Structure formats: C-alpha cells, structure tokens
C-alpha cells in the first residue's frame, strides 16, 4: 500500500514540472498565441487514450485465452482510464479549435477517429458495467475489446481517405524543438498520472469483486441474516 503515496507524489511533481514547461519554458506560438498551450496536454492525452484502449484490448485477449478474471478487470480499468483521457481530448480539442479555426468541431481525420473509438469503447464500458454479471457478458465485452484494436487502424484509414484533401493542421509541422521538449515532459507526467489512475481503478474493481464473492459465500452459508 505504500506504493500509492510515492506514486502520487511523483505524479504530482511531474505534473507541476509539465505545467512549468508548458507555461514558462515553451515559447509562445506566433499565430495561435496562448491558446496553443492547450496542445501540450491535448496531444499526450490523445496518445494515452489510445494506450488505455490498447491495454484494454490486450488484457481482453488475455482474458479470452483463459488468464482469469483479473485480466477482465484490468481491461475494464484500462478502458476506463482511456475514456477519461478521451474525454480530456474531446473537451480540450473544441476549446482550442474555436479561437484558431473559428469552429468548435471539424471532421478532421484524427478527431473523427478519436470520437468513433471513444464511442465504441464507451459502448464496451456500458456493456461491461450494466450488461449483467455473467461469464457470457464478460466474454462478450472481452471480444469487443479485442475487436476494437484493428478498428483503430481501419477507422483511421477510412477517415483519412474520406477527408484526404484537407491539410494537416493539428501536428502543425513546424513545432519548435523547445515545444517538443514540453510535449515530452507533459507526456511523461501524464503517463505517471495514467499509471496511478489505472492502479487505483484496478484495485477498486478487484476489491469490489472480492466483496461480491464474499457476500455470495456468506449468503450461501447463512451469514447475512
């Protein structure tokens, strides 16, 4: 249990360092101005969202291959953390787009891919959490988790071809080296936050399962009266 205070402290320090890098170290972007500073948390969040989904897909595959219920809970927790970072992307994206592009939303390939995958894994989450507590539902969810991984590629490909004529705006090719440094620092910091949240979530899910099993056992031997 001592690992949590330590991890929390390191993650907090990392986030503070990232904030320093973003607001003090990185120069002000010439065209977009101060609002471009959203980017330093927006882009790593998008990567971590995918990381969460990919871990979810991997753990789901592990569960389907008979690795036991912990893998199912780990997949669920990873998807939940992925969805959190996805929500961050979806909130910060439009806030950035509005002053820069003049619109809240664009059917830009990366945004569209992200949105579709978030919807898909949100459906996974709804199924897994509200679908009932049977083995069949857990396996259904795990299959969905695995099915989602190749879909990252296909959705991205299709959407890119669909919007192929549009210029590449988000990556903004000419990012100064010091800006990239800020991106890497905030990625490292958010990675720590990711790890912390995933461990917390997984522990909560695991203990909930333990409680459920214990309650069932007590119910059987008549200890719940």
């Amino acid at each position, binding site marked *: 249990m001592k690992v949590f205070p330590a991890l929390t402290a390191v993650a907090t320090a990392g986030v503070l360092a990232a904030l320093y890098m973003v607001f003090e170290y990185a120069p002000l972007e010439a065209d977009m101005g101060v609002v471009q500073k*959203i980017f330093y948390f927006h882009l790593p969040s998008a990567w971590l969202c995918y990381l969460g989904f990919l871990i979810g897909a991997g753990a789901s595959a592990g569960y389907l291959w008979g690795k036991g219920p912990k893998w199912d809970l780990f997949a669920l927790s990873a998807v939940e953390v992925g969805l959190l970072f996805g929500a961050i992307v979806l909130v*910060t994206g439009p806030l950035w787009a509005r002053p820069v592009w003049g619109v809240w939303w664009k059917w830009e390939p990366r945004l569209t891919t992200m949105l579709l995958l978030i919807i898909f894994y949100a459906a996974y989450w709804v199924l897994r959490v509200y679908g009932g507590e049977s083995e069949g539902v857990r396996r259904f969810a795990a299959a969905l988790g695995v099915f989602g991984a190749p879909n990252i590629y296909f959705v991205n490909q299709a959407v890119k071809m669909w919007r192929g004529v549009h210029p590449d705006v988000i990556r903004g090719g000419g990012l100064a080296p010091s800006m990239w440094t800020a991106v890497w620092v905030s990625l490292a910091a958010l990675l720590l936050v990711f790890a912390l949240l995933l461990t917390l979530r997984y522990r909560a899910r695991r*203990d909930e399962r333990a409680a459920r099993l214990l309650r069932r056992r007590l119910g059987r031997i008549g200890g719940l009266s």
Partner: protein
Amino acid sequence: MRRILAAALLAGGLWAAPAAAQETPASAPSGAVEQVTSFAAGSNEGMKYRHLWLAYGAIWLLVFGFVWRTWRRQRDTDTELEDLRRRLVALEGRDGPGD
C-alpha cells in the same frame, strides 16, 4: 475528512490553472500589444485566454472527478469487505472453519 481534502485539492487545482495561465503574458508581452492595436484581435485574444482557462480547468475537473469517484468506491468497498469479514469470522467461530 477525505471529502474535505478532495474538495480542497479540487479548489486548489481550479485556482492554480488560471493562475498559471495568467502568468504567461509576462514572459511574452506581444499579446498585450495586439490587444491595444486592434479591437478584433483583442477580443480574440480574450477568447484565447478564456478557452485556455476553461481547458485546463476541465482537465483538472475530469481527473479529480475520476479520482474522487474511484476513491469513494474504494472506501465503500473497504467498509463492506470489513463488515463481511467480521461476519465470516463470527460465523466460523461458531461453526468451526468454513472451508
């Protein structure tokens, strides 16, 4: 106690995000110049600051909301587990070991 702590953290985060955002013009005074020269650019600058503020505020809110909910679940589960274990021990003390 934890509730108060989390609320304090949240408030701190919300306070820190705009505070950090407001520090930026000092290191880059070009924004201020633009605000004087053009009203249109000025209002756009205002929107940029507001949106930056909102974005970092939203990140804090989302992350702390997540931590807060996870924390509460964990606390409820811990309480329940403790209760169930106590019942189990009581039962086994009466009937002998269960398994």
